[in-house]
């Protein structure tokens, strides 16, 4: 599974990305996460094939724009709930992503 994870500048999302990848490894699930800033989402989606776009809660003001980009590329969009945006909650977040992808 290939995830594009966007926060405002791409800094904190890289921490969450590492958490998700570790969690995936633990479960034997192939998870690749790229962390990025919101202004690069469109370019990232055009450059590479992803299964889902996640958006960090502090960048909620970009929700519509990022959701639209995901729709244009025909992939899932998930707004990360506030309680799941920390390295300790990587398990919960991966569960949520898996569930959303099944829908």
């Amino acid at each position, binding site marked *: 599974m290939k995830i594009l994870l966007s*926060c*405002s*500048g791409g*800094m*904190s999302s890289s*921490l969450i990305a590492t958490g998700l990848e570790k969690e995936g490894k633990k479960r034997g699930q192939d998870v690749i996460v790229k962390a990025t800033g*919101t*202004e690069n989402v*469109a370019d990232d989606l055009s450059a590479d094939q992803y299964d889902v776009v996640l958006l*960090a*809660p*502090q*960048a*909620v*003001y*970009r*929700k*519509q*724009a990022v959701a639209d980009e995901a729709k244009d590329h025909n992939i899932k969009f998930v707004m990360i709930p*506030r*309680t*799941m*945006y*920390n*390295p*300790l*909650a990587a398990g919960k977040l991966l569960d949520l992503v898996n569930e959303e992808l099944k829908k």
Partner: protein
Amino acid sequence: MKFNSEKIANGMASLAGNRYFTAIRDGMSVIIPVSIVSSFFTLVAQLPTLIPALKPALTPYLADLTIPVTFSIGLMALFSCYAIAASLAKTYKLDRNSTSTIATMVFLLLAIKPGTITPQMAKTTGIAAGTVFPAQNFGAYGLFTAMVVAILSVEVIRFFKKHNLVIKMPDVIPPAVLNAFTSLIPAAVLIIVAWFIRVGLNFDFNAFLMQLLSPLAYFGKDNLISVLVPIFFNSLFWMFGIHGAITSTPVVPYWYAHLNANMAAIAHGATAATVPHFMTEQFLQFFVYIGGSGSILALCILLAFMSKSKTGKAMGAVVLVPSIFNINEPIIFGLPIVLNPYFAVPFILAPMADGIITWAATVMGLLNKTTSMVPWPLPAPIGAFLATGYDWRAIIVTLINIAVSALIYFPFFKMWDKHQVKIEAETAAEEAQAAKA
């Protein structure tokens, strides 16, 4: 009246998510890398503060060392205008290159008035005869014009495209050429109007805008209010889980103007102690937002070393290192700080206290002013030391600020930790009960 946090958060999100605010913020971020790199030249110019023996060797090169600053922060309005227009054009799916180029030209027409050096003047000034551009409005002084022009130009181009007021070309033309022609009519309108305002009416749009926004300048000046107001709003937005930096957008041009003036003063032989301005983004970054907004490193330290609860210990282990590098999202959402009644008060008070301490130290002459732009992920004591032109007292002030913030956070942290211990004990008891049954 019922307190509806979700509603407030949504309101704040839509304010922060305003298309123009975001375009301005994204656009202005293009100058960060070039400004940081250029700042290292100012750091070299200030090496004699650290090693006095270097003074005779470096003094002749002071002016040369600031050339990169002139071409980075000194041209920031030009760079920002192009990049803001590009960001906004991207959200409207307009061609970025042609749109930005037009916007930049409109900015130049409105903000810069070319002068002429005659052959006689050339003899006295030493500047070659020809057309010259005064430099001031290319930098922070032209920044508001750059923002307004970038947004207006993109809107005009969008309007023309939307109403199909464009020159139609056959499909066989390559897209790049096609884009140039699509922009032809709006470009003509924008350039003629801008030219008419500047030359026909002899109207100084840049001066007018500065005058119009002068009340705002109050929050960008070197006074205590300009320290406290941005901190308050920054913390308030983060309390609702929304990136707080966006709230400073309107005063950022003043902070850059200050930093630019400080760097220019260094070029003329001033030191970080004698430069004119203290209120810069670097001041907030390294003395106030230590560990991230809310001066949160202090709380991370408390969590890591003083927690009695399991939650506190686990959280402390995860958030401490990111916070040393000024990344605060893990604790903001992990603890959480967001909408947490335990931490609302210290999250606002601690950075304000740090702001007051640093302000006081600066006005009493106990601390150098910031003269370089150093990368924000640097740990606060190192960042503060570099940004103030190697002032060792900056390290002391950051350490004092961390201690004061820790004192402010402490009682609230204690209450929270006690509460966590209680919850953990209750859960353990319930689980034991369940296991028995």
